């Protein structure tokens, strides 16, 4: 009871800081299973989409995965398992994948989930007119990029559905050993025939969003701050039924408002406002803190005359060793984001600790590396620009790094860019020096980090550093084209070491994590490494 009284006391204080979003507390339910009110998921404004074909944000995808089951999924321990698919095989070295589907699965409207349901879903999701931001995940499939850009018709030869045999056969552009993981992305969800022609604005009338997941939408969505999304168990669900009779997601205009709604007892969970982790974790406990598949890092512009190229390796290693990751973790994230030791985050299949140059501060090493760099004929550089997109708190991280670098004698300064779009487009075109970046896994595979972030083919894309290494590219390419999992894993590890330790193309700072405050009644709150809260597995007393 001590915890409860503490909680009650802080209610009024915190409710004061921002007005709690309106709404009433749903009283004890007549149904046997408890109901659940979530203030965490949509705590930073309204969701973009919850339509699986369109959503590009973690929060939207989280809800989409509750409404739609794909072929595969990742569980809370990071293991891949079949959701609609019962098994999958490739006979030609990952060029073609055949999925066998479970029988007797149904959409919430009673329609059977068949291989052709995936064809229906994909035709919609990847159509040019939908203009889905996440449609590019389909480019692994032969002919799908042409379909998506309007240059070709539906690649019926690449996606073959056999409803009688319950098989779905998919032909890839290149050998893709990780395809079973990739296809777990929510954009590959099946849809019933009733949704085949639903437009991108189907959410304006949410009841048309019909899925095959453990939950279904109870009512039309009011996607705005102050509104809520309500899901109830799907009566036709073929898998394990959720333990909750209803989940209500409250949409708040900002994190403070959402936290206040939680603190005033309106919800069963809530987010933690930035900078208040320590204070709040002591109040609410650490049940909701979990590391997720994301890494923050600072990249070095490979083409920059001061920090780029092989000749400036010692300056980069000096910077990397100088950074106090523990300080960043504790001062800014108060331990929710932990110091990272490599680019791949813990929890990712194939993760190995210590792949980066260092995870702890090595001031002497930094000083001696800097001296070696100066000994090569370099002079003290003009302040190194730490570029970042403004307004998201990166300035504080950058400030710490500048202070860290000062101890070594390396001058540095802040270089903020106002809007995200401007920032990333400038960085992509090589305007940065030290580039603030981060990556969150789309699917739990090493390739999802290494290829887009560091491969030469990703320059102008997500390879903001414009890093180009023949060795690295060869290692990744060889890993991509093999079906030998252990060989692929070792190649990816060698590639990571090449980029982070040998070339120091980037220096990782912290691994991302999610911190949720939970009411005492919540006894189990599973979050997958991809950051998805498994609402169907939440246990509430």
């Amino acid at each position, binding site marked *: 009871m001590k915890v409860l009284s503490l909680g009650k006391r802080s209610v*009024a*204080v915190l*409710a*004061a*800081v*921002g*007005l709690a*979003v*309106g709404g009433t507390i749903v009283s004890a339910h007549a149904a046997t299973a408890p109901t659940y009110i979530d203030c965490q998921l949509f705590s930073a*404004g*309204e*969701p*973009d*989409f919850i339509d699986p074909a*369109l959503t590009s944000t973690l929060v939207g995808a989280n809800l989409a995965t509750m409404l739609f089951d794909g072929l595969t999924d990742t569980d809370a321990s990071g293991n891949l398992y079949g959701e609609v698919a019962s098994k999958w095989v490739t006979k030609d070295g990952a060029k073609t994948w055949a999925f066998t589907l479970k029988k007797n699965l149904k959409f919430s409207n009673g329609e059977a989930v068949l291989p052709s349901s995936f064809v229906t879903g994909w035709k919609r999701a990847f159509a*040019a*007119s*939908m*203009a*889905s*931001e996440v*449609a*590019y995940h389909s*480019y692994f499939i032969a002919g799908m*990029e042409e379909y*998506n*850009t*309007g240059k070709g018709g539906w690649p019926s030869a690449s996606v073959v559905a056999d409803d009688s045999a319950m098989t779905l056969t998919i032909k890839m552009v290149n050998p893709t050993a990780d395809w079973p993981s990739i296809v777990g992305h929510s954009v590959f969800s099946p849809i019933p025939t009733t949704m085949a022609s639903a437009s*991108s*604005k189907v*959410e*304006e009338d949410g009841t048309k969003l019909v899925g095959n997941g453990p939950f279904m939408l109870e009512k039309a969505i009011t*996607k*705005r*701050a*102050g*509104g809520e999304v309500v899901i109830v168990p799907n009566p036709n669900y073929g898998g394990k039924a959720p333990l909750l009779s209803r989940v209500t997601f409250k949409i*708040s*205009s*900002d994190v*403070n*408002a959402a936290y*206040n709604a939680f603190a005033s007892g309106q919800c069963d969970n809530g987010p933690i406002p930035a900078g208040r982790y320590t204070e709040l974790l002591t109040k609410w406990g650490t049940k909701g803190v979990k590391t997720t598949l994301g890494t923050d890092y600072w990249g070095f512009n490979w083409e920059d005359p001061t920090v780029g190229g092989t000749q400036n390796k010692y300056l980069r290693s000096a910077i990397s060793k100088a950074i106090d990751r523990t300080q960043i973790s504790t001062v800014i994230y108060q331990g929710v984001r932990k110091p990272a030791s490599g680019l791949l985050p813990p929890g990712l299949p194939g993760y190995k600790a210590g792949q980066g140059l260092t995870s702890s501060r090595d001031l002497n090493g930094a000083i001696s590396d800097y001296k070696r760099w100066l000994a090569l004929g370099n002079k003290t550089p003009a302040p190194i620009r730490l570029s970042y997109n403004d*307004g998201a708190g990166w300035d504080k991280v950058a400030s710490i790094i500048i202070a860290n670098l000062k101890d070594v004698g390396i001058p540095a300064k802040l270089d903020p860019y106002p*809007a*995200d*779009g*401007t920032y*990333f*487009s400038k960085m*992509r075109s090589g305007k940065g020096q030290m580039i603030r*970046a*981060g*990556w*969150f896994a789309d699917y739990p595979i090493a390739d999802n980090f290494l290829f*887009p972030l560091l491969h030469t083919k990703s320059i*102008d*894309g*997500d390879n903001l550093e414009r890093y180009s290494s023949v060795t690295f590219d060869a290692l990744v390419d060889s890993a991509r084209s093999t079906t030998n999992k252990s060989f692929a894993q070792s190649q990816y590890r060698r590639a990571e070491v090449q980029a982070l330790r040998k070339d120091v193309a980037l220096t990782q700072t912290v691994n991302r994590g999610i911190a949720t405050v939970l009411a005492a009644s919540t006894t189990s709150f599973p979050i997958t490494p991809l950051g998805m809260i498994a609402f169907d597995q939440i246990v509430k007393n």
Partner: protein
Amino acid sequence: MFTYTIKRLLQSLIVVWAAVTLMFALFFIIPGDPISLKSGEKSLPPGILANITAKYGLDQPTYVQYFRFWGHLFKGDLGYSYKNDKSVNTILHDGLSTSARLLFWGALLQLIIALTVGLTSAIKRGSLGDRIGTIFTVGIQGIPVFVSGLLAQYLFGVLPFQMHWDWLNFFKPWPQSWTAGVIPTDSWKGIILPALVVAVVDAAFIARMLRSSLLEVLRADYIRTAFAKGLSARRVWFHHALRNAMIPVVTVYGTSLIAIFGVAVQTEKVFSLPGMGSTIADSALSQDAPVVLGLAIVVIAFGAVVNLVVDLSYALIDPRIKIDSKAVH
């Protein structure tokens, strides 16, 4: 009066058109790449970007976009958010319901406070109340709204809780009987403090204006005439002095009604209210041009209407203004 009204109405329409065009130019011509917000931390392949660009019609020349924008506007369609395809009409409707409530109570409180403070300090000139009023009205002008908003939260939320002053806590649920079914309970709780914050800054300014205007009017000969006629002091103040004193005050009130939007943005941000102001602020920061523009049209039109009403009410208050000439300004 009728022709004058029509003429001013046309002028207002032109002003709205010009202001909206200015905003359109700022958001659609200069930045060039409003889709950039779509491409955040993860870059998007060119094919995906082309699809999105085509979906919002941004592949068309700017003038086509501009005419299309007005075409849709005349049909009552403000377009769709770049961020989540939500109809701007819906966003506007949602934001307006919060903001309208905030601004209505804010403007009303503003008027009540301004009239009460202004009148009493003018009538009881030199009294203790007048002095307190003057200090209040001068002092409050130095306080930006976001500071007074945070201060109000501290004084009426944090402090009463920490000190156990339950009677002062604005965030405690209020007794049901207070609302008496007029306004939903949580509206009261949610709106009273923000509305006060909205009201108080310009209320102080208007009160000062009213006070000095009234003092000047009270020295006028016709006020002496009115007293000499045997009118009661109340009638002289309210019937003869107030109406004359209102002439400069109406301008200030109009200006403050236009400026109230800026106040609302800060208040909504401070109190985390999901209104128009905070929506515009967030959308502008993420370059969600259709939302900014759609909401801005309403704000601009509101400003134009206020200007129009101010001009017309001049003519109503002061017969000396010749409404058929352009000497209104």
